């Protein structure tokens, strides 16, 4: 914990410094990264700690976002209603999808979570009144009441940072709790876990639901970030992107999701916004093809550094 505090202090001081340097754009970028850090961390709980390779996490992420969007379109803009609603909807989706999917194992589990996520995607895209394929624009960020507003970049950043910090702490406590230990055991050897008396299905489902709920919160936040909800949030490419973040950062580690999100979004931003001279002479619009670099980096990480960034920096075995 003592290593973490200075980092959080830095993160807290960051926007003030940016404001002084007229770099508010970076504050907004940082908020975005933190939101994806939450989403990736939520997936890490199910995938890394729980060992459940869910290829459909975008469903919970997007469902949370769409809940906020749809409520806003219907006139409900209160943060205190919209955000818990987003979490609840995502949790319910995870409950239903998990309940059915967890009866399968291995590759069938991966495929069935993917298929369910596609169902959710098509379901939302078919709602023409809420944007259909074009997505849904919100009139502004959720309203916290009490005369406050989240429209400012700084205020928004601190809210997101606080939520990220709380969730990270929650995951830390969870990992060290009875539940965390049980889940790890189930991941390690689920047959034996059942044979010593753990109702494996129940624990896996609980883990899956918590993971989905957290993703739903991230979804609510992303809807607020740009005041826009895009159906691509629900697409399986989004699920894949979240998985990339988790494996980049470190599967099953506390900060894996955050590091991965930071690395991936940072990489995309760097490629898009900073032109490398010699590369530009070779291939004039290389910056439009950031996907190539992302793909190549992912491939390299997967083949060469399976434990991700955390694995590269860790000296002992991961938590």
């Amino acid at each position, binding site marked *: 914990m003592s290593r973490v505090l200075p980092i959080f202090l830095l993160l807290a001081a960051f926007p003030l410094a940016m404001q002084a340097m007229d770099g508010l754009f970076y504050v907004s970028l940082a908020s975005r990264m933190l939101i994806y850090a939450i989403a990736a961390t939520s997936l890490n709980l199910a995938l890394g700690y729980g060992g459940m390779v869910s290829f459909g996490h975008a469903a919970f992420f997007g469902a949370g976002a769409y809940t906020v969007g749809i409520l806003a379109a219907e006139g409900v803009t209160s943060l205190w209603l919209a955000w818990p609603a987003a979490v609840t909807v995502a949790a319910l989706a995870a409950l239903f999808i998990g309940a059915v999917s967890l009866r399968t194992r291995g590759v069938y589990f*991966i495929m069935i979570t993917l298929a369910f996520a596609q169902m959710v995607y098509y379901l939302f895209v078919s709602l023409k009144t809420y944007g259909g394929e074009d997505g849904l624009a919100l009139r502004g960020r959720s309203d916290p009441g009490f005369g406050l507003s989240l429209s400012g970049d700084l205020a928004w950043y601190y809210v997101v940072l606080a939520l990220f910090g709380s969730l990270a702490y929650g995951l830390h406590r969870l990992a060290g709790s009875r539940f965390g230990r049980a889940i790890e055991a189930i991941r390690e050897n689920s047959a034996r876990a059942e044979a010593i008396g753990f109702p494996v299905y129940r624990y896996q489902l609980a883990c899956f639901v918590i993971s989905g709920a957290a993703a739903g919160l991230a979804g609510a936040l992303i809807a607020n970030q740009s005041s826009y909800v895009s159906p691509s949030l629900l697409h399986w490419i989004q699920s894949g992107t979240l998985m*990339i973040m988790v494996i980049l950062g470190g599967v099953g580690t506390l900060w894996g999701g955050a590091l991965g999100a930071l690395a991936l979004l940072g990489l995309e931003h760097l490629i898009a916004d900073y032109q490398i001279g010699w590369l530009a002479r070779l291939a004039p619009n290389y910056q439009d093809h950031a996907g190539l670099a992302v793909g190549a980096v992912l491939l390299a990480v997967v083949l060469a550094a*399976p434990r991700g960034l955390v694995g590269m920096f860790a000296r002992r075995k991961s938590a």
Partner: protein
Amino acid sequence: MSATLFLEQGLNGLQFGLMLFLLAAGLTLVFGIMDMINLAHGSLYMVGAYLMASFVQATGSFWLALPLALAATGVVGALLELTLLRRLYARDHLTQVLATFAIILIANEAVRLVWGSQPILLNAPPSLTGPVTLPGGMQYASYRLLIIGVGVAVAVLLYFLVAKTRVGMLVRAGASNREMARAMGVDIGRLFTGVFALGAALCALAGAMLGPILAVQVGMGENILILAFVVIVIGGIGSIRGALVGSLLVGIVDTGGRAFLPLLFGTFLPPQMASAAGPAIASVLIYLLMAVVLYFRPQGLFPARG
């Protein structure tokens, strides 16, 4: 609802299903024999379609371009297997998913680099742009009939290859028990490369044939890949027969659902709701089908592995 409409949609479903089979067959073999989830399969389909379009442009002939596209994609597939995918056989499924997902990203960008971001044109051969009159008086697009013909021919050929030839026997042995096959002295390395190249060629065939009907654009692989996976999960991993049955099921249910559900809903729901609910439910129909099949047969309809 006329009989013509039913027949037409039935044929469309058959056509789509047979093309799905081309993808599913390669996918299920790779999965069954090498125990590898290959998300890049859709990218081979895309590359096949793009190469076909380019070869048609270069040679001016659909029929000349087709074997060229198949061969070229087969080579791409073989190269991919030799350089990258080999390293993934021993890894866990998550690693395979991520690595092949990375390949999708790279392939999409590479295609964009070479051919640009706009969809490109691929036309049916001029001799087949018109309709054909079927027995019974119905008109049906001749090109679509060709697709059905090609699909059936390939299915029959594959059946012979897998069931009646020595190579096929090796493939089936590999699918049901890889260790045993290896112990019996089968050159696993070359078998794998061969299976992969064949799968790639089949993808290219599907891409080339469907190109004139669907758009040839970046990302076309992803949409059909999901369907192919649904097919092999329904059909049973490692089973060609399962892939065929699954593809036909999915093709017909999907096409039929999209055509008839909105109409069906329209009969008892107010038009506003029917026009929204119809397409929504139709899109998820095949996923529901998959869920139902998996509920009763968690290993699919014809699992290859005992």
